[in-house]
C-alpha cells in the first residue's frame, strides 16, 4: 500500500512541473523503484473478518491459546461491569438515546445491507463489463482488420491474371487477323478463277442460244405458204376427229 502512495506522490511530483533538478531526480528514482514491484498484487476480495460486526477476529485468535473460546467474552463482560460499577461510564438519558439509535441502525443494516451491497456491486460490475466489452470489440476489430489486410494481399497476388487475360486478348486478336488475311487471299484467288470459269460458261451459252435462234429462223423462213395451208387443213381435220371422239366419250 505504501508503494502505491509512493507511486501517487511520484506521479504528482512529475506532473506539477519542474521545481528543480533534484526533485525531478527524486521522482524518477521513486518511479524506477516502484516499477520493480510491478505487477502490483491484486486487492483482497473481502475485508478482515469481524465478529458481531465490530470486534476483529484477531482478538479472539490472540486470546484463544490462553483462555479458550469464552475468553474474549469474559473479558468484555468484565470490562463492561467494571465500567458500570465504578461509574466510569455513567448511565443517563444519552444512554437510552444511543441504545435506540443503535437498535434502529442495526435493524436497518441487517435488513437492507445485502440488497444495497448487491446494488453497489452491480454498478461496479456494469462498469467492468462495459470496459470488457470495449476491449473485446477493439480486439475483434483489430483481428478483423488483420484478416482484411491479409485478404487484400491475397487479392493483389492475383494481378498477373489480369495481364495474362490482356495478353491473351491481344494474341487472339492477332491470330484472328492473320486467319482473316489467309481467308481473304484464298477467296480472292478463287473469285478470279471462278470469274474466268463463269466467263467461259457465258460464252458457250451465248453461242448455243445464237445457234438455236439461227436454226429456228432459217426453219421458219423455209416454210412456204403452200406448206402452211396444207398444215393448217391437216390440223383442222385432226381437231374434227378429236372433237367427235370426245363427244362420243361424253355421251357414254
Amino acid at each position: 500500500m505504501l508503494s502505491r502512495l509512493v507511486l501517487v506522490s511520484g506521479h504528482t511530483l512529475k506532473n506539477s512541473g519542474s521545481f528543480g533538478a533534484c526533485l525531478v531526480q527524486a521522482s524518477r528514482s521513486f518511479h524506477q523503484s516502484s516499477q520493480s514491484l510491478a505487477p502490483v498484487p491484486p486487492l483482497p476480495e473481502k475485508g478482515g473478518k469481524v465478529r458481531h460486526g465490530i470486534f476483529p477476529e484477531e482478538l479472539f485468535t490472540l486470546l484463544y491459546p490462553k483462555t479458550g473460546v469464552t475468553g474474549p467474552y469474559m473479558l468484555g463482560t468484565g470490562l463492561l461491569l467494571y465500567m458500570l460499577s465504578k461509574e466510569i461510564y455513567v448511565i443517563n438519558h444519552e444512554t437510552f438515546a444511543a441504545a435506540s439509535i443503535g437498535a434502529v441502525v442495526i435493524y436497518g443494516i441487517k435488513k437492507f445491507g445485502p440488497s444495497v451491497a448487491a446494488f453497489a456491486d452491480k454498478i461496479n460490475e456494469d462498469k467492468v463489463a462495459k470496459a470488457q466489452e470495449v476491449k473485446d470489440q477493439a480486439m475483434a476489430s483489430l483481428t478483423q482488420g488483420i484478416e482484411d489486410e491479409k485478404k487484400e494481399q491475397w487479392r493483389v497476388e492475383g494481378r498477373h491474371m489480369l495481364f495474362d487475360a490482356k495478353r491473351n486478348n491481344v494474341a487472339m486478336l492477332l491470330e484472328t487477323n492473320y486467319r482473316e488475311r489467309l481467308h481473304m487471299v484464298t477467296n480472292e484467288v478463287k473469285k478470279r478463277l471462278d470469274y474466268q470459269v463463269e466467263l467461259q460458261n457465258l460464252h458457250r451459252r451465248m453461242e448455243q442460244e445464237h445457234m438455236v435462234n439461227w436454226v429456228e429462223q432459217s426453219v421458219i423462213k423455209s416454210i412456204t405458204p403452200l406448206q402452211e395451208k396444207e398444215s393448217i387443213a391437216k390440223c383442222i381435220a385432226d381437231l374434227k376427229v378429236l372433237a367427235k371422239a370426245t363427244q362420243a366419250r361424253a355421251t357414254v
Partner: protein
Amino acid sequence: MAGRRAAVKAIDWVAFAERVPPNQRAMFNSLKTRSDSVAAKLASLPEKPAPIDWTYYRSVVAKAGMVDEFEKKFADLTVPQPVDTQTAKIDAQEQEANKTAAAYLEASKAHIAEYEKGLEKFRNMIPFDQMTIEDLNNTFPETKLDKVKHPYWPHKPIADL
C-alpha cells in the same frame, strides 16, 4: 503461313473472379465480355482456309497457262503475320502494377504490424477487476480526468456523464 506466335494461355475465370475486389467488379465483367467475344470470333474462323482445287480449274479454264500461273503465284505468296504493338505496353503496365503492388503490400504489412501492436497491448493488459484508476488511466489515456481544465468534481462536462 506457318509459325504461330504467342500461344494463348488458359485462364481460370472462376479463380480470377474470386480475387476481384467488389469495387472493381464492373471492370472485370466488361473485360470478361470482351475476352469472350474475341475468343468467340477466333473460334468461328477455321484455322486454314479451304484448299483450292487446282485440277478442276485446270480442266475447266480454257486459257492456257492461266491456272498454272495462278497456282505458282499462290504457292509463293506468304501472308505476313500482323505486327504485335500491344504486348510491350502490357508488359510495361505489368511492371508498373508490380511496383504499385509491392508498395501496397508494404503499406498493408505496416497496417498489420500496427494492428498486431494494438492486439499485444490488449493481450498483455491486466484484467479490469484488478486495475486501479491509475492503471486504467495508464492503459487508456482517454479515461484520464483533466483536473486542470475542470477543477471541480466530476472533472468533466456534465453532458459527458
